[in-house]
């Protein structure tokens, strides 16, 4: 039935594995999608080799935005910051395993946008990061 609401998305929305806030952390960033009030914060710890050793997200919003954040955070642990910088929209959609229309795409991409803005050390998250 509802392809968008694959079991994994509902499951990650209801029982996120990586929800939380790391304190202390090496990198943090947060932003929201003003259209629907989705909000995502990410905090990362980075080891001496420049790899993500621990990561968490926090926030509120729709199932797509929260499940995508949980799956994204899971996928970056152990990756180098350089690898994280290279992550694309398609990488995230592959994690979710669904097709999204333009409106819901923004929900799904919020976490990636926030993550990349944090890793790049930018002042604000721009849509260009996830094009």
């Amino acid at each position, binding site marked *: 039935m509802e392809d968008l609401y694959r079991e994994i998305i509902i499951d990650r929305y209801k029982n996120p594995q990586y929800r939380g806030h790391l304190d202390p952390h090496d990198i943090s960033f947060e932003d929201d999608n003003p259209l*629907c009030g989705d909000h995502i914060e990410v905090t990362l710890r980075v080891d001496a080799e420049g790899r993500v050793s621990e990561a968490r997200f926090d926030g509120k*919003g729709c199932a*797509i935005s929260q499940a995508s954040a949980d799956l994204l955070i899971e996928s970056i642990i152990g990756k180098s910051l350089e690898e994280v910088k290279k992550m694309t929209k398609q990488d995230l959609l592959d994690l979710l395993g669904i097709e999204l229309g333009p409106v819901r795409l923004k*929900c799904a991409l919020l976490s990636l946008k926030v993550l990349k803005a944090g890793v790049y050390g930018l002042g604000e998250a721009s849509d260009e990061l996830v094009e």
Partner: protein
Amino acid sequence: MTLDTLRIRQDFPIFERQVRPGVPLVYLDSTATTQKPQSVLRAMDEFYRRSNANIHRGVHTLAEEATALYEAARQKVAAFIHAADARQVIFTRNASEAINLAAYAWGRAHLKAGDLILLTEMEHHSNLVPWQMLAAATGASLDFVPVTDDGLLDLDAYRSLLTRQPRLVAFTHMSNVLGTINPAAEMIRLAHAAGARTLVDAAQSVPHLPVDVQALDADFLAFSAHKMLGPTGIGVLYGKRDLLESMPPFLGGGDMIKTVHLRDFVPNELPHKFEAGTPAIAEAVGFGAAVDYLSALGMDAVAAHEREIIAYALERLEEIRGVRVFGPPAEQRGGVASFTLEGVHPHDVAQILDTFGIAVRAGHHCAQPLHEKFGIPATTRASFYVYSTKEEVDQLVEGLYRVKKIFG
């Protein structure tokens, strides 16, 4: 039912389509824009096929015909809102542009630093941002009539705010989120007694209720065609004659002038003074056909139909555990129900309902401050019109039970 919805639905070609194979359309988003009857589509098509020409200047047959059709539409719209004179009906691009016109042309000429503009907490962004811009440009200040927990305007607070002698009171006749029908005539009477001018955002009321601008005694009133069976791209600013006469023009260009020299111009008479450039001619013709359609149904019958539907919808929605509907009881509202479903974000609700062909809206519905007031980022909104049926309400309710099941 008050209206014969079965017959009415046959007038709307869009109901012939399926959203996806085997999934019929349940359109519950008429507050955003309504569907269009065949008569409106035909009128616009006919115009382009038979009478298309630019208006007001040409002397050839088509130009005469197009001008007559455009001005006839203005007459119909004026009669529909009981305006004393069709020249008081200014065609704009939409209700937002109508409010911007008033804020710019009247506001900048009449307001100065320290003046007060009184709005309400339930305004659509279109009746909020133009006044914020005017306040920034003139140094005027803004204040707001509070909304009660029931989704009504606090009229005691309104009376006390009026003692501060605002220059203008601008408010929505019917909330696009809560559905609240505000006591516009009473509010205007009080505003006038306090020496204020009034602007009524009637984008939701003119489509759904009988509206008589003279009985209301509104100074300005704004609405859009596309929310009342007409096309997008055309709206109305109604204004009192003396106010419109006293205002400087809004946009400059063709048609809004009487004479032009290299260094100056003389503005045209009403209503053309405010209609610069080639207007939405075919859309005006379609708007006229929409007004004809609604007049044939009768606005009393339209309002009664929606009261019946919304009463039924509220009753059915409230039986679902976890649903919270915002706004007043059915007697005080139009055909709009905004709600939250516990544990499920409105976007997810709307998305899942869409898989069953049910079109609702999710978000803050261009009324972010109102949502902040209720402490929620977004709601799901179902809204109804002349073609809406109780069966569609049942389908919505069934859909919501399925959403609950998915989110377990």
